[in-house]
């Protein structure tokens, strides 16, 4: 098995064995979505107007909570040193990590999002935009997250710090994702917004691994 595959497999295995990370992220996602109606009151029409925003904000926050696990534990137990010394390039390493992270975070959220949206009674015609948006947007979250996670390695209180670094960067995802849904809900086309999301995920697919790899190089020592 190639180094890439080995790392993805291992991270998935760890996620599954370590008390189902994926499940927990999803549960947090659900919790955040559940908190809002409590905060802003139950009026269905108000909620359905905010549905898209709430779901996306919840997704951002849930993802944020999960970033620290990307490299932190490898850093703490010394695995990262060994991975850096291994023959595989750091960029590949980062990509493998991001893929594993997306599979245990983005994908499950993508799958549960429609259910939550329906609980916030989102308009029916908006669902395709919601799904497409999340499918294009969640990878960006994982990729940007890797940069933040790599940058804060060795810093104390990495948890909150990474949130601070990454959240602002992921704001565009939030905006386009919501815009796409709004457009669909109001009967306009959501293609432009989705295109932008796609562009964002392509760009981050190219750039983020470079940035993360650079950060990782300095993280050792």
């Amino acid at each position: 098995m190639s180094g890439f595959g080995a790392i993805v497999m291992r991270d998935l295995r760890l996620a599954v064995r370590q008390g189902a990370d994926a499940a927990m992220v999803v549960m947090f996602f659900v919790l955040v979505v559940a908190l809002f109606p409590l905060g802003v009151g139950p009026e269905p029409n108000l909620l359905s107007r905010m549905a898209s925003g709430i779901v996306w904000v919840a997704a951002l926050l849930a993802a944020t909570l999960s970033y620290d696990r990307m490299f932190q534990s490898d850093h703490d137990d010394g695995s990262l040193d060994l991975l850096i010394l291994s023959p595989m390039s750091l960029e590949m390493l980062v990509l493998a990590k991001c893929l594993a992270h997306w599979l245990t975070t983005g994908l499950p959220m993508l799958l549960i999002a429609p259910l939550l949206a329906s609980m916030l009674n989102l308009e029916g015609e908006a669902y395709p935009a919601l799904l497409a948006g999340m499918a294009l947007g969640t990878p960006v979250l994982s990729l940007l997250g890797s940069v933040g996670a790599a940058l804060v390695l060795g810093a104390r209180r990495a948890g909150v710090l990474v949130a601070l670094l990454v959240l602002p960067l992921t704001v565009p995802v939030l905006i386009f994702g919501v815009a796409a849904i709004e457009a669909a809900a109001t009967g306009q086309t959501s293609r432009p917004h989705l295109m932008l999301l796609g562009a964002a995920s392509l760009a981050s697919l190219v750039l983020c691994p470079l940035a993360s790899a650079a950060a990782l190089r300095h993280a050792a020592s």
Partner: protein
Amino acid sequence: MHRFANPTRFLRIANAVFPWVAASAALSLLVGLWFALFDSPADYQQGETVRIMYVHVPAAWMCLFTYTVMAVASATYLIWKHPLADVAAQAAAPIGAGFTAVALATGSLWGQPMWGTWWVWDARLTSVLILFLLYLGHIALVNAFDEPERGSKAGAILALVGFVNVPIIKFSVDWWNTLHQPASVSRLDAPAIDPSMLTPLLIMALAFKLFFVTVLLLRIRSGLVQRRIRAIRMIEQAG
């Protein structure tokens, strides 16, 4: 009561009573369902959808009841350190989660015709959703430790702390003006509801209770066996 806390003795008793409980559960469920589905009138206002009540209400009652059982078992475990109480609490959690899920599902199915929406964020519905998450959190916590002991203790403490939610659910409908209870209680308390509707409801409630006991016995038994297996495996692996 300590005599029953001994797993082996408990298993003997459990095995003895199990068939009867299971049988009566199945029977009452059949009878209740038959009444509920065929031998009870459709509601003059709700029509056939009222039949959801026969599943929803017992399930809803059970999700509160189960958590109470869990809390009591946990307290017993923490205070008297009965391993059996611990097994029982852990065995009850998934069942309670199941009942809660059913209450939520049937509730929202019922909500569609009644309130014109699958879900409203009123106090009761939300607090039940939270109860559901508490169940899941409990299950997650218990399984998140290397030391089974730690998982048990942590789970027990959480069960006790989380118990505050039960009265909140129970009285949410009185504390906050919600969409939920008015629709329900008026329907139940009003003389309009005649035995033809109340009897099946009560039979179903009984059936759910028996069903709970049945599954609980099963899970406790397998829980005890699991511990034995884990012990054996650890020994042959690590010697």
